[in-house]
């Protein structure tokens, strides 16, 4: 699937993650800023990548600012960003969740 526009989901509140998705042409590139990077950086990257793949997104630049979000929050915010980027917000793909 092709990203149609740059999209953002999530906030900078604690226990949240803010995901910004934009077009890319070299796989999934994640620029992660997290207060728990050392312990959970890889886990967060994996959740984001898997969620994007489930939407058929193979190329994207991802800016992720994490404030201690749980995996389910990372997933939900990535889904919302993907749907906005694909302009499919009105048809949420609940199976991914």
């Amino acid at each position, binding site marked *: 699937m092709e990203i149609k526009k740059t999209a953002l989901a999530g*906030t*900078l*509140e604690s226990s*949240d993650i803010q995901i910004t998705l934009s077009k890319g042409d070299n796989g999934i590139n994640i620029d992660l800023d997290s*207060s728990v990077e050392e*312990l*959970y950086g890889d886990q967060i990257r994996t959740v984001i990548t898997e969620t994007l793949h489930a939407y058929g997104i193979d190329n994207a630049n991802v800016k992720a600012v994490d404030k*201690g979000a*749980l995996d389910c929050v990372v997933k*939900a915010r990535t889904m919302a960003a993907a749907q906005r980027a694909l302009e499919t917000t009105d048809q949420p793909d609940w199976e991914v969740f």
Partner: protein
Amino acid sequence: MTNIFTTGQPQDIPAVLANKDRRAALQQRLVAAHPDMTVVAAKLNVPGPIKNNRAIQEFFTVGLKQLEEAWLAAGTLFYQDTEWLDAGTGPERFYLVQAAAPIIKEQTTRFEEGQPSHRLFDLDVLVKRAGQVVPLSRADSGQPARRCFVCGRPAKECGRSRRHSVGELQAAVSALIGTALATEQRQRVRDRLVTFAQRALLYEVLAWPKPGLVDPVEHGAHPDMDAFTFVNSSLSLRRYLSQAATLGLHGRSADYPLMFKELREFGKRAEQAMFTATGGINTHKGAVFSLGIMTLAVADSWRRGGKVDLAAVQATVKKLLAGLVQTDLQAPPAAKQRTAGERQYQRYGLTGIRGEAQAGYPTVFDHGLPAMLAATGDWNQRIIQTMLVLARYTEDSTLVKRAGDPAILDWKNARVDECLAAGGITTAAGRAKLSQLEREFTSRHLSLGGTADLVIVTIFLTLVKEGLADGLSD
């Protein structure tokens, strides 16, 4: 410890995330609209699906009252812009504060760390950074990060790893909130008891007509004071009454004689406050003694039973005052420093208020209180009728002192009986006798000062019985 999570609407992740979006949008708008103020977002960290209910809301409101008091004391001006008190995702409040963000961050961190239960508060101080509204972090001001309220590790690690089960977290939150609310409830009961005690003092002086006492119409028996003197005196006793209530509400050792000793020390200071307020006139010395004891005993009963039980109150009074007559009257101070009560014990063997108090105020419990609870009509009528009943059964040491002869007690009893037989304040004939008695007391310079103290105590107990929401059984 009770579980506070038995009520409330469970929240799911989408609801919590949608609320974060809503909060972020409001914060964005507030920061943009108020460039000269700092926005503070207050919420609670309540893990698990239940994030709001009555206990949580009360905890939130009470905690923020303390934050507001800290701001007030620091001279920090603020106002509340928005409140989401009953949001399913948890209560939230947004303040606009007139101070620089780093200074407020220091205050809010101090608040969060100030008490164990404040650890549950999440106070975000918002700033604009690179176009986005973000909360200042503790690291920005060089303060250590939050600790987990279960195990003390860095909170972010425990939160991310889900180290603790929801049940474990809720138990910890329940304990913190339960303790905080119990403290708050004690303070409310204390304030209520102080209000009742001060009302009792003021109601007594307002009631008319009172032979041998000060009322707003007449104070012939006490030319050196008037109703205004009593207002001043009543208000000067606030701190003392609060101390008495606190003693009872927090008493842990149940060492009643020691509690009474402490109360008496507070009482001596209260007397000084009273004399300062009245210009050296003794308005309420007896009331300081009796009302202080009764306030303590009522508070003690509430602490032990979560309600006030009259039998328990009377039992506590007896425990507090065990041996009072022996210690005070049988080994009194040097003659010239003696009080009227001490002199009368020496001369006539009358034990006066000490005997009455040590026996658990039987005159109040057996005569005054039943009379007041049964009396109909407005407060004036109830108080005067009760005063007559109390006057009838009180060995009034003020009266004996003024008359210089305990034979006055028989005269008083006969006159009060006549008045009561005629119906007291409830009939025209009784009122005529009451007025006549008032004139007689004035012309003979007689006083019912000892009775007045028992009237005050009886009003206090009536207010407690009729007004303390937590119930009272007898």
